[in-house]
């Protein structure tokens, strides 16, 4: 009985581990990125309806727009990571971990007047429907 239970636990652990992946990329404010991509897609929809020419309202446009203005900050509560050309949201546990990690770090900049604004994160977890169930997060 014990052996069966142990084997089942081991199999569960292994199957979870096999789906876990690493996402390395820019850490973003998910709320801001959502708003930007929504407004970008609505503006592209209106522009495509007004012009007959084929346009590329693609996610890359939305992504580049959002990534410019949506850097994660220490006051961000909902995070996303831009990795492999896609934007993944973090689950609520991931948001908590990311917020804590953002508040518990500091840099020494080459010039104190120009602290860099972007953060890179290494997120481990399982992805489903664009959301990562975060196991661990390491912010550069």
């Amino acid at each position, binding site marked *: 009985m014990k052996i069966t239970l142990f084997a089942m636990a081991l199999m569960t652990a292994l199957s979870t581990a096999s789906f876990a992946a690493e996402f390395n990329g820019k850490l973003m404010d998910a709320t801001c990125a959502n708003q930007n991509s929504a407004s970008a897609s609505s503006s592209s929809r209106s522009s495509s309806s007004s012009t007959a020419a084929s346009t590329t309202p693609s996610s890359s446009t939305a992504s580049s727009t959002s990534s410019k203005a949506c850097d994660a*900050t*220490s*006051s961000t509560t909902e995070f996303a990571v831009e990795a492999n050309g896609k934007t993944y949201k973090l689950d609520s546990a991931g948001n908590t971990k990311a917020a804590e*990690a953002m*508040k*518990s*770090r*500091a*840099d*020494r*900049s*080459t*010039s*104190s*007047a*120009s*602290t*860099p604004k*972007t*953060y*890179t994160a290494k997120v481990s977890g399982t992805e489903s429907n664009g959301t990562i169930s975060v196991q661990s997060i390491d*912010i*550069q």
Partner: protein
Amino acid sequence: MTCRRRLLRPLPVSLFLLTAFSLSAYAQAGDPVPHEDREALANQYVHEVLPYWQHRMALDNWDVHILLSRPDDLRPGTLGNVHWNREKKSATIRVMDASGYHTDLPAMLKDMRVTVVHELVHLELASLPVADADRSNQEVAIDQLTDALLADGGGPSPDRYAADARAVNP
């Protein structure tokens, strides 16, 4: 003859480039300490500087680790960072490694010492919340505090390290 001239033409240019490159490399190093030794000395130095300043700044109740990081592993435009866990009282300081410095050994070690002390000041302030808008001001204040602390001297001297290294690599 023309063919020979054509073949020889790139030679002075190559020689010039080679000389310029080696001279600039020598000027960057500024001393005869090989790169591997600079890296090893830097590692040894930061591990000696950390406990001294940690004790001096009354941070003995923190478990602080230090490691050298390649510039690519740090945020662009930064020389180091600190990550802490307030509950566990643990922290990791990352200092840019020797590959990111194009100065002589004493200058490199001095700057690494500044990073260590700067990050320790951050630890002192870890319990205080900082708004994003205040981050730059906080960094300026921390830079000034770091300068003030280091102005008093004390601790492992970068010049002594450099002198010892030069004695080994005459």
